[in-house]
């Protein structure tokens, strides 16, 4: 919404300039985004033409001699409408800067020295006309040398407003002027033209009698119409055209411009029909019938549905009510009689229709926010006043006011004590009354009850947002100024429940993951089907009904595509090694057809390229880099050790991981995640080098942490430990964990731990064989073990794995 500062000052009597108006309106909740300062037309003056002759060398150019009150200038001009000597024009002298930024200089044009430029409306940003220069008609005023900004009607300041949808009254200058008057504490007196007396049918010159019939009163509470006969359609006067142009509307003709002027004044849309192009003897407000269609003013043929409200004549729909008129019934240059419409349509209905037809017009914007149905007579009277002044000159004798549903009175009880408590502001009751009355409410003291003072407030028709007590409380605060609300810090009563455990677990996971050297990534939750396929994720995914595009059509069932994409992008940007983690939700379709998707918080990490080495290139990342980090994160976050086990059927369960180099991450008998190297096919698809990935189901971890509660301390023993090492030559397929478990079991309770400490492969040992060395720690809780005791137990343990796994002691 744009507003003219000049117009607002006229209506409100507050003439403080755009900046101050903007500040006060913004403070009152009507946000002014910008103040456009226009029409600084320095060095642009009125001049009169002394002589005109054709350009000696160039066709279609003329050489014009103009006088600006002090001296003569020769100007080369290409406009077709240079007036004869004596005509007045607008001269931009050398040095002048046009609104477009163009600076006028003395130039040589085809051998003629041109000392300036004769300006068009468009060049001065006054109006849209670029076809010819401004020629000032009439007598008097504007002597040569007068500054153009004084001689021409210029909207020097325009406010660019961002009006919240609860304030339809602020979509017109009258409403804005009222806010200004209230803000500055001056009485507000808007124009209140009286309509002519109403009648049942409008007599037309051709003998017809026009009726209005509302067949859908639930959609149209009021419909006023008047017939303006014998209009002379033509261009509007300059000030009106310039004003509309400055406020972002295209001047069209005096009839249409007059209705738009009243729209901008009152915020109430008005439609003008060409009465001769309507069939029958009246208009009907009704819902469209199936199969009906209408060509709207924008030339688009629209198929209508039962939910669309239309204005129809005797034969067909002639307007999409409250949204856009029809092409066949609009005002044209040859229109003689105009039927004016001022109405109130149901906001929801207008909004649905506008959205269905993807139309957003000045009219629909206001109707869907709610116009003032009590203002219909005034708006109609104002429109008639303007129209007769600008296009007809004859007063209109009567109008039709079809008003099946008057607005129910909104009487609201306001308890001043409640307002004071809610705002923390000490306002006296008399002051409240004055403020509400200034806003247009009527206020009466309610019958006194035993304990509490009450005011009975009736809200004005232009404020549909005032519905209950709390709305009035906001008005009081708004008028008083939110700045006056004091500051107090409340005592927050802490809850026994506190934050849920997952909040703490997630926080610790985040910190732990950053602690093991991972950069946190945050991706959009959207993913494409194709990227899922490229990640070998053949899983069902939640589909969006209205995605922004194919690339973002699904909700991610896994964090993998985001992280792989980030690694691939980084590699293209020459960052060949990265270590990312992400903690976010994944989405799976509901088990039942219509239920909500299952959301799971997942922590995933992706390592690409080489492991960080101290100086020099590290080795390519592998399974153990991902697994180790996952274990470290979980241990830091919740004090649990994840166990990694080869998947039974990795190919099937985790198709995005290398089938031989992936493992499940287990915690107390439940699988809570995966770790592994990414599948070679996936790496090739994304053009990645070595990459390892791990993921953890945070929900499972939270459940585990809740179940576990607080962990118990292990008291360190006082007796000394005895250590024994053993190196075993085994087949590749034998896992360290298997050997360790077997050693531990065979060694019995004296064995405290078995840790692998060396892994070694050598051709001489034969292919498919490896040497694994373990350190076993023996301890008795109460007494010191002797070497002899330990040797016996250790020998038994070694013997057991030699037998069980065909190991050779090295």
């Amino acid at each position, binding site marked *: 919404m744009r507003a003219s500062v000049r117009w607002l000052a006229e209506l409100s009597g507050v003439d403080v300039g755009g900046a101050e108006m903007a500040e006060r309106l*913004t403070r009152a909740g009507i946000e002014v985004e910008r103040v456009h300062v226009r029409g600084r037309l320095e060095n642009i003056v009125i001049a009169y033409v002394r002589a005109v002759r054709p350009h000696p060398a160039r066709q279609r150019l003329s050489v014009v001699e103009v006088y600006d009150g002090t001296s003569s200038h020769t100007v080369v001009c290409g406009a077709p409408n240079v007036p004869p000597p004596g005509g007045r024009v607008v001269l931009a002298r050398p040095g002048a800067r046009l609104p477009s930024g163009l600076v006028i200089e003395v130039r040589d044009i085809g051998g003629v020295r041109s000392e300036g430029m004769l300006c068009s409306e468009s060049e001065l940003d006054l109006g849209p006309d670029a076809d010819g220069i401004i020629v000032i008609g009439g007598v008097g005023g504007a002597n040569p040398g007068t500054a153009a900004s004084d001689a021409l009607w210029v909207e020097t300041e325009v406010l660019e407003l961002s009006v919240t*949808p609860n304030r339809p009254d602020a979509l017109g200058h009258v409403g804005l002027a009222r806010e200004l008057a209230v803000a500055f504490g001056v009485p507000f007196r808007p124009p209140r033209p009286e309509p002519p007396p109403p009648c049942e049918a409008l007599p037309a010159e051709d003998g017809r009698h026009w009726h209005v019939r509302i067949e859908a009163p639930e959609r149209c509470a009021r419909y006023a119409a008047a017939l303006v006969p014998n209009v002379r359609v033509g261009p509007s006067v300059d000030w009106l055209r310039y004003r509309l142009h400055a406020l972002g509307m295209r001047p069209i003709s005096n009839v249409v411009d007059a209705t738009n002027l009243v729209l901008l004044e009152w915020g109430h849309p008005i439609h003008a029909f060409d009465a001769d192009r309507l069939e029958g003897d009246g208009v009907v407000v009704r819902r469209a019938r199936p199969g009906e269609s209408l060509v709207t003013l924008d030339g688009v043929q629209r198929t209508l549905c039962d939910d669309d409200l239309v204005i129809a004549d005797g034969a067909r729909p002639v307007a999409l009510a409250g949204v856009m008129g029809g092409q066949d019934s609009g005002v044209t240059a040859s229109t003689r009689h105009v039927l004016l419409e001022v109405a109130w349509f149901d906001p929801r209905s207008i909004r649905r229709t506008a959205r269905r037809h993807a139309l957003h017009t000045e009219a629909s914007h206001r109707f869907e926010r709610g116009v003032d149905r009590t203002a219909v007579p005034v708006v109609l009277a104002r429109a008639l006043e303007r129209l007769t002044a600008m296009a007809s000159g004859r007063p209109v004798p009567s109008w039709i006011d079809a008003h099946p549903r008057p607005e129910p009175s909104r009487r609201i009880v306001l308890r001043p004590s409640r307002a004071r408590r809610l705002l923390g502001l000490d306002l006296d009751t008399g002051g409240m009354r004055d403020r509400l009355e200034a806003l247009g409410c009527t206020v009466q003291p309610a019958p006194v009850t035993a304990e509490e003072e009450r005011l009975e407030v009736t809200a004005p028709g232009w404020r549909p947002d005032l519905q209950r007590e709390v709305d009035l409380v906001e008005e009081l605060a708004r008028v008083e100024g939110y700045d006056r609300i004091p500051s107090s810090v*409340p005592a927050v*009563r802490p809850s026994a429940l506190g*934050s*849920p455990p997952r909040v703490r677990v997630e926080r610790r996971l985040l910190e732990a993951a950053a602690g093991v050297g991972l950069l946190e990534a945050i991706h959009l939750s959207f993913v494409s089907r194709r990227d899922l396929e490229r990640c070998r994720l053949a899983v069902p995914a939640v589909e969006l*009904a209205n995605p922004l595009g194919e690339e973002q059509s699904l909700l991610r069932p896994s964090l993998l595509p985001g992280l792989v994409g980030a690694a691939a992008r980084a590699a293209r940007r020459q960052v060949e090694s*990265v270590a990312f983690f992400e903690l976010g939700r994944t989405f799976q379709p509901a088990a039942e057809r219509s239920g909500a998707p299952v959301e799971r918080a997942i922590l995933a990490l992706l390592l690409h390229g080489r492991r960080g080495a101290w100086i020099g290139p590290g080795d390519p990342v592998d399974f153990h880099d991902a697994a180790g980090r996952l274990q470290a994160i979980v241990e830091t976050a919740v004090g649990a050790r994840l166990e990694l086990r080869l998947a039974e059927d990795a190919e099937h369960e985790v198709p995005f991981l290398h089938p031989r180099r992936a493992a499940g991450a287990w915690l107390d008998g439940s699988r809570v995640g995966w770790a592994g190297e990414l599948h070679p096919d996936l790496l090739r698809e994304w053009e990645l080098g070595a990459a390892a990935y791990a993921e953890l189901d945070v929900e499972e971890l939270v459940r585990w942490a809740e179940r576990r509660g607080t962990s118990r301390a292990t008291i360190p023993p006082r007796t000394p430990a005895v250590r024994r090492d053993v190196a075993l030559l085994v087949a590749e397929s034998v896992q360290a964990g298997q050997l360790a478990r077997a050693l531990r079991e065979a060694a019995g309770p004296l064995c405290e731990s078995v840790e692998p400490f060396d892994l070694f492969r050598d051709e001489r040992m034969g292919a498919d064989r490896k040497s694994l060395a373990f350190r076993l720690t023996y301890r008795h809780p109460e007494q010191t073990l002797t070497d002899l005791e330990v040797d016996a137990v250790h020998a038994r343990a070694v013997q057991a794995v030699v037998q069980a796994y065909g190991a050779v002691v090295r």
Partner: protein
Amino acid sequence: MREGDPTRLFDEGLARVEGEYEAAFAAALDEPALRAAAARYIGPNGELTQLLRQVGSLPAESRRAYGARANTLRQRVEHAFEQALAQLRERERRRALDVAPVDPTLPGRWPRPGRLHPTRRALLDVVDVFTSMGFDVADGPEVDRAEYNFDRLGFPPDHPATDMHDSFFVRGGEADRLMLRTHTSTIQVREMMRRRPPLAVVAPGVVYRRDDDATHSPMFFQIEGFLVDRDVSMADLRGVLTVFGERLFGAGTPLRLRPSYFPFVEPGAEADLGCTFCRPWEQPAGARPDCRVCKGSGWLEILGCGMIHPVVFENVGIDPETWTGFAFGMGIDRIAMLRHGIPSIRMLFDNDPRLLGSL
């Protein structure tokens, strides 16, 4: 004197030790070698130790003199050993100190450390301010019913108030009008239905709107906060938000409330914090007209807030006559961008390690 005369052998022994030990100690290059050399003379099985043990078997008349000689020699050997040891240690100490200086510009030997995402850090910082004031943290589903996103919050049906909330809907979820939440206010509704007042909760999370241009991302972070208790007033709202602004951006950061409209609060307000870049409240001249962050206004729009609308209380079964409360919601991404000078929200979701690692 005859062969095997004990005194002669004793003499020879003493002479040998006396003649050798200094050279032997001098030849030892390190402490173990020196100790081994010393042990040859004065260790438990050392030559001199054995001689001393034999003093008792010498003829009585020479016993005393030999004993004295052997003891004197032992003292000299011990002294020489200590001196040699001290010299050796001094030499080693000098060697330990006299090395090339380190190059401290080489990277430390530790995996390159990780970092939290700038948005995450902003989010955690904001959460911390409110938890320190006694607020709990809550969360809720990202895919939710329109009932929680709009209806129970008092959004009128077919109303332009939803224009700011252009929503994504889930295919197949039409019956429940399943959508991606457009704000974290869904959690306000859910928490008020789950728990009874008094309530003080903040709820961070991602939200989704169908906007995608240079200044909008279809997903972004928000944090919702609300306090419900007896007699909560708008003054309390101003107080809590003032503390928030000062904790996050420094003491003295001013707060401004402007009337605004959100269907679920009344009175509703937009809260601006003093521009944290040109800090007009610290400058005699006020806001810098050329400040690119606040564009000369001196204020930054940070959050929307207000008193919880009675209709919301009614929709969740809380009596609005007994309980009042305030609510606020703010974008987190913007705070991260302001803090770090990140020009575009889209950079926050691009996850370029060069940007993430620089913050």
